[in-house]
């Protein structure tokens, strides 16, 4: 009985633990790829290469070094002049209406694709903490 009790307790704590945990990075990247295809690919292109002078690249982009600013741009949109890898872009990226979890997923996909790599894992909580 005692054994069963402790087993149940363990099972419960694992379940609740998982509930508050971010999903595995591989899953987040896979989900982020779907979001990317739906919402980002048309401008930033299939390999994140962008269109020089019109849509900035995401592949090996120095803009992504500032994670908070990147999340902010996806969450609230981006307007005006930015510089990416030494090239100037004046544009208007509209807010796509993505949920916080979806923003975390697409950030994880971008940060781990096309030659990009990151030690930071973006979570829903991180996205939630970026305020206007």
């Amino acid at each position, binding site marked *: 009985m005692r054994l069963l009790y402790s087993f149940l307790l363990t099972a419960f704590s694992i379940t609740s633990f998982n509930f508050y945990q971010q999903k595995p990075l591989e899953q987040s990247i896979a989900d982020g790829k779907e979001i990317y295809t*739906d*919402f980002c*690919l*048309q401008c930033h292109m*299939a390999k994140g290469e962008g269109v020089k002078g019109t849509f900035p690249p995401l592949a090996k982009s120095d803009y992504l070094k500032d994670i908070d600013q990147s999340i902010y741009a996806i969450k609230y949109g981006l*307007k005006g002049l930015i510089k990416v890898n030494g090239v100037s872009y004046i544009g*208007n990226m*509209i*807010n*796509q*209406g*993505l949920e916080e979890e979806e923003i975390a997923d697409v950030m994880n996909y971008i940060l781990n694709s096309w030659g990009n790599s990151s030690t930071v894992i973006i979570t829903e909580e991180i996205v939630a903490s970026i305020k206007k």
Partner: protein
Amino acid sequence: MKKKNLLICGFTFLSFSCNAQQNGPKIQSSTTVDYTYEIVTDNIDIPWGLTFLNKNEFLVTEKAGILYRVVDGVKTEVQGLPPVYVRGQGGLLDIAIAPNYQETGIIYFTTSSPLGEDKGGHTALYSTQLEGNQLVNTKLLYKGDYNTKKGQHWGSRISFDHQGHLYFSIGDRGNREVNPQDISRDGGKIYRLNLDGSIPADNPFVDNDNNRKAIYSYGHRNPQGMITHPESGKIWVHEHGPRGGDEINVIEAGKNYGWPIITYGINYSGTPITDITKKEGLEQPLYYWLPSIAPSGMAFSTSDIYPNWKGDLFVGSLKFEYLERLEIKNNQVIEREKVLDSIGRVRNIEEGPDGYLYVGVEGKGILKIIPKS
């Protein structure tokens, strides 16, 4: 003889490879620019829909979910919109006064809507009336389903024929394999309703209860331009193709316009969608753009205000950031010209009650084209 055959082959191959890259007539830059423009109202990010209440007053929708009333160039936000689902290419979309607006005060608009049980959204059509800066008597006339969280292809434009019908478009909602060819589902369709929102008894698919009875034509991808031809009264629609293959179609009851079975375009990734551009039972476009211009908004110039433009078709290009003028003879495009070259992403074009052309440009607002005299 053999040599001649070879020559013909070579020529055929050459013209085929040309066709693979672009469809004529070639777009021309204006040689003499005998027009200018003024900004009527500024500071609108995505001015999607525009409708004139009278000569001095119009309504503009902003995709982000704002409706503006503009009186003598001064804009005020209108209150009372139903929920707008701003997601991807969706948001607050087209707006149009009823043909009998002077008597009824009725205004129609389309929006991406989260209503319904499923997560996500679909395109909805509403009727409403304006009291000061407030919408009143707002009624939901049609709501596409099933909702999806996909960000693509909501349409939408509204127009009217001369027999008391309203037409509006919904795009394929990012599910091309399922929606556009299935008339028991919404998406990838042109719809026809009576002005009160009821379904006309002579709609083409009313005989089967499984069908969406409001459907008028199907096999569309993402129609964001619609205009009633000033003479024939027929509904002209253009739609975004994938990479290549934007189309102009003249809409007929019950017809299938082919998406995605036939198309002149390919996937964004460069892979083919289908290897055929024609098939029996599927309509051919009046014109297709190759390369794509990403068309949005559509209007005929019917006034005498612009020299040489009367009867011409105007279409906004989001991609190349100009307004395109198309000269059409016997249902063939014979000339294309860039108007307002490099002006910005052209989202909409309307002819005002004063006969001037009004252009919705992203990041700018509403511009009025003025001939130089």
